[in-house]
């Protein structure tokens, strides 16, 4: 378990991280969300022991990162922001160096390095120097370094930053595959990523936690959560809209776009989590001989929630 207790970091006059507390259990992937400058990297730097906290601490698997730093750091795998790697080293040399410092048993060291190289799709570049690698490969080399010693706790600062969509997909797959027996924290400002990999999300703004929930839970706070979106063709869409509004269980309805007889309508139910009203709406529409092209129940959108929370 990673236990973050009231971590605070003050830079000169600026409070970059303000009394942040949370815990992450094994099996969880915690998404650390926030706009640029929110304090994500600073928090991670304190959890990994790179920056001393101004106050508060983090306890990693029972070891305090301030009081028992070495043992805490031993349990962590860390991918810093921008994936720094020694440029003049070859990929294998770099990973062997990390394995050696980490005290990976020297008999199994080469096997571990080889295995990690396989896992991170680095076989083709293993003898290349890091300086000659593209951004995506560099990111993966640094990622490889973080999982090399099979740590129980993983901390990734923007692991998919600067990768192309295929590479993003691969990295997310790798993270998800590992999650069963590890506790993982990853920071991002890409909201799709939270949906794709995280079991829980914390939103941080101006150094403070402003939301802590599952991605579903967060989306449920979106104003469009549970609303119905229908595309129809009808004689008189406006007349239909009036009827829809009068339907029991409907709180509001609006036409989002209309051209002639085609329209896209959004319907807000009285209670988004009550039994669905979709079938009644459908029956009503076909009774009025409107053609329904599509009907969609919105889950709610993370970006709306994110914007609402972080700009208020």
């Amino acid at each position, binding site marked *: 378990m990673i236990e973050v207790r009231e971590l605070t970091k003050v830079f000169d006059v600026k409070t970059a991280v303000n009394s942040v507390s949370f815990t992450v259990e094994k099996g969880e992937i915690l998404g650390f969300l926030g706009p640029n400058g929110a304090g994500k990297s600073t928090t991670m*730097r304190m959890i990994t022991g*790179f*920056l001393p906290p101004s106050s508060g601490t983090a306890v990693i698997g029972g070891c305090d990162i301030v009081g028992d730093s070495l*043992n805490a*750091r031993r349990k*962590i795998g860390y991918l*810093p922001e921008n994936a*720094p790697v020694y440029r003049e080293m070859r990929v294998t040399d770099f990973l062997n160096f990390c394995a050696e*410092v980490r*005290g990976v048993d020297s008999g199994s060291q080469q096997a571990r390095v080889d295995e990690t190289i396989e896992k991170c799709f680095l076989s083709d570049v293993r003898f290349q120097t890091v300086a000659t690698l593209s951004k995506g490969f560099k990111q993966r080399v640094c990622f490889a370094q973080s999982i090399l010693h099979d740590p129980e706790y993983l901390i990734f600062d923007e692991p998919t930053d600067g990768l192309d969509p295929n590479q993003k997909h691969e990295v997310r797959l790798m993270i998800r595959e590992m999650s069963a027996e590890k506790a993982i924290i990853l920071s991002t400002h890409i909201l799709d990523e939270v949906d794709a990999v995280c079991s829980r999300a914390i939103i941080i703004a101006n150094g403070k936690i402003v939301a802590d929930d599952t991605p579903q839970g967060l989306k449920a706070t979106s104003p469009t959560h549970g609303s119905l979106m229908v595309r129809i063709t009808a004689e008189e869409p406006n007349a239909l809209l009036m009827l829809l509004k009068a339907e029991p269980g409907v709180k509001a309805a609006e036409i989002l776009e209309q051209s002639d007889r085609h329209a896209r309508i959004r319907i807000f139910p009285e209670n988004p989590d009550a039994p669905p009203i979709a079938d009644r709406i459908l029956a009503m529409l076909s009774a009025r001989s409107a053609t329904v092209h599509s009907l969609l129940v919105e889950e709610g959108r993370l970006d709306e929630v994110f914007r609402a929370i972080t700009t208020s």
Partner: protein
Amino acid sequence: MRTAESIRSIRAIFKRELAGYFGSPVAYVFIVIFLLLLGFFTFYINHFFEMGQADLRSFFEWIPWVFMFLVPAVAMRLWSEERRLGTLELMLTLPITIFEAILGKFLAAWAFLGICLLLTFPMVLTVLYLGSPDMGAIFTGYVGSFLMAGAFLSIGSMTSSLTRSQVISFIIAVVICLFFILAGYPPITEIFSGWAPKWLMDLVAQMGFLPHYASIKRGVLDVKDLLYFFSVIFFMLAVNGAVLENRKTA
């Protein structure tokens, strides 16, 4: 237990750093410049051959001045580069202490300078050819030079931890090295001897490299002088560690 681990970490960093030197062309350029400069000063300025003396006195005379510029050039990238490229974050989140990281890097750079010194062996062969030199004095001369290289290096390592800029690190290091050379350098002490109190003069002179270096290269390996150089190294590396501990950022 912890000692074995310490040694393992220091050795891993040492190996990585030393391989780094010989993996880059800069190291070879450095070696060539070092040898050319020393050769130029010793043979050309000091008229080595015309003096007809079978010793390396003039060679060792020049070493502090050459080191004053070249050692900070070796040291300047030690920490500045790690800070600039962000690899410091990688290094300091590994399960190693700052002390181990500093020592690993320092020893690798010192070994590199030791190799540079060893590559001046043709000088020794030359004086052996010219006559029968005092081999003891030559040996202690090399020991003294190596110790001074370490002291300069510790200064450069410390200044390099202060900044991300190698140039700034280099300049500060040269200034500090210059202070350590000039403290106790007779032409300078004479200027001050008129008005500065005697005890202060003595104290500053005791801090200078040259008196200690001079007695070593005369062939006397005094514990006092060895202790002096190791204290300078220890002090500078301790400051280096404090700077890294208290850094606000990468």
